[in-house]
């Protein structure tokens, strides 16, 4: 029944969209709780302490801050949906223009990190489940405990000192060597752009700079994946269909990869979407430590500079990316599990 899969997709898409609307509403409410009067809002938009009363009034009129609250919300919503989040009070450029530059940088390294983390997590988790109770299991448990329980900044710091300052193997900060000229933006994603333009020295520099932040995120994140994979594998190993697979006379390896793996991986998909959110949170700290100038770095700078508009815009953008990640996970889930797809 293909049509049901179609309905499933549409329903999930609508859910995602409603969630997005609520998210924008939430941010709007937050702003208005903190800045209840038009004047307070206007001051934030001006962004400096030096202003005249007439300037204040003109900002209020320009941004429609004196209008009824629902009109303001509809305006905000319409603007947000069309990607217009207003001017940045600090840089005096449209917010999106700034973020356009920062988002790809963060997404690039977070996606690589998530990929790495899932690979490590699934392998170690599966291994631990296969050898449950044995030394391998204990070793993996110790490993993921330390990785999971450590604050993000601890690993980042240790990596930075170890590989960059001490061993001098890898660059300690920045997205790429600042002496090189970046490629012309085609997709906006530096890694892809430099590859497209054949600028391999820049590509290489990007990769080198990416290693440590990616490792820092993957190390702090893989523990959760390992734990989930281990417990879901153990659960699957206890199922009758695994016993039946052994019963057929299949070898341990075939049973694991043919039967256990496919089933145990299902919950990992949902988890990974959640992990994506964690990784972006982590990116705020990581980018600060490695001066990796992406969205997280931008957010942190905005916090330091009390740039409300930038903080809220970044928050919305991150929220959107998490919603998209969840949607993708839903679809993947349905593709992997015929019970969802054919229900």
């Amino acid at each position, binding site marked *: 029944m293909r*049509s*049901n899969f179609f*309905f499933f997709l*549409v*329903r999930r898409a*609508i859910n995602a969209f409603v969630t997005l609307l609520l998210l924008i509403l939430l941010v709007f409410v937050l702003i208005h709780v903190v800045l209840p009067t038009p004047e307070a809002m206007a001051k934030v938009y001006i962004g400096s302490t030096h202003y005249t009363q007439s300037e204040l009034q003109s900002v209020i009129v320009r941004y429609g801050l004196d209008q009824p609250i629902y009109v303001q919300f509809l305006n905000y919503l319409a603007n947000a949906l069309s990607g217009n989040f207003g001017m940045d009070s600090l840089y005096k450029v449209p917010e999106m223009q700034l973020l356009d530059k920062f988002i790809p940088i963060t997404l690039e390294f977070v996606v690589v990190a998530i990929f790495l983390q899932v690979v490590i997590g699934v392998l170690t988790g599966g291994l631990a489940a296969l050898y449950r109770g044995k030394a391998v299991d204990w070793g993996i448990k110790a490993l993921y405990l330390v990785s999971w329980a450590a604050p993000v900044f601890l690993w980042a710091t240790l990596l930075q000192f170890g590989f960059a300052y001490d061993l001098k193997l890898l660059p300690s900060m920045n997205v790429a060597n600042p002496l090189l000229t970046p490629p012309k933006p085609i997709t906006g994603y530096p890694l892809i752009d430099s590859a497209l333009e054949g600028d391999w020295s820049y590509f290489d520099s990007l990769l080198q700079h990416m290693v440590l932040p990616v490792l820092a995120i993957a190390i702090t994140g893989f523990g959760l994946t390992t734990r989930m994979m281990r417990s879901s594998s153990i659960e699957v190993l206890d199922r009758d269909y695994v016993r039946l697979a052994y019963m057929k006379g299949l070898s341990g390896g075939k049973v694991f990869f043919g039967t256990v793996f496919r089933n145990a991986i299902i919950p990992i998909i949902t988890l990974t979407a959640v992990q994506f959110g964690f990784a972006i949170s982590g990116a705020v700290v990581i980018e600060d430590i490695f001066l990796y100038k992406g969205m997280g770095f931008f957010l942190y700078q905005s916090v330091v500079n009390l740039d409300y508009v930038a903080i809220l815009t970044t928050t919305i953008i991150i929220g959107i990316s998490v919603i998209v990640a969840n949607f993708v996970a839903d679809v993947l889930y349905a593709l992997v599990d015929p019970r969802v797809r054919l*229900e």
Partner: protein
Amino acid sequence: MTSLLSSEENLVKAEDIKKYFLAEKSGLLERLAHKRMSYIKAVDGVSVEIPKNRTTALVGESGSGKTTLGRILVTLETPSSGKIYYGGLLVDEKNLKEVRKRMQIVFQNPFESLDPRMSIREIVEEPLFKLSADEKQSRAKAALEAVGLNYNDVYYRKARDLSGGQRQRVAIARAIAPNPEFILLDEPTSALDASVQSQVLNLLVELKKKYNYTYLFITHNILVARYISDWIYVMYAGKIVEAGNTEEVFEKPLHPYTKLLLRSVPRLEPGAKLEPMEGEAPSLLNPPPGCRFSPRCPYAFDRCTKEEPRLVQVSGGAHAVACHLYDPNRRWK
């Protein structure tokens, strides 16, 4: 409507009960897309009478709708259409509370039906919440002793720390504590071991003798039904196919389904050959036209696939069957 089965006084009567469940999610989206809704016809036009102070068995395989019907009869579920009379009174919104006070229920799985965090005493006292503390305790005590449990041994324990048989006794004690007239027993022994099952069956018989309860005993085990009941209804795919005095139905089963079912039950006779009926129960989403048993029925003729048989009385009122084979006019139709 005249009585289907007997001249006995009926405690509960249900007329033309239907219960349709939506087969899939039907949100705004599906409605907008004009998707045709499909319904699971769990119970499809069923009338039953439950004689007072008797045990009526409702027998059927999974998917026959027996549990849904039972739940409708104790008002746990609202029927899509149909009427229920309790003691001659039409059950509606207004008298629902009153009616509910007079009925109780014992579920199949004693592991599910008792709150695992509550003590036995709390569990048995729960339906008595309107009474004073002393009254509650003495009633709970009496109920637990009546089901063969020692109050002082069990009242403080948690349900999850008892064995299956003991839990089922507690569930029965909870059911009898508020002095109901009517008790729905939904497969009360199917989760129990053979040696414990007979204990519980005996207990139920004994309690009925003592307190004159009216039981509706739902089961898939036709031998258990035969043992415990006075009257029996046999359900198949949301319909009642045969009903009557238990002895008569077992001595002279009429409906082909009942006959075949009796022949599929393994008995304690070595070497006895089972004669299974063919096929599986039909989908309740789109049941076969005509008689629902017709695709599996060895005696099916063309009328069976065209016209739905009605439940009609045979042999003077104590036995009814829904099968065209027993329609005297079948040749002419």
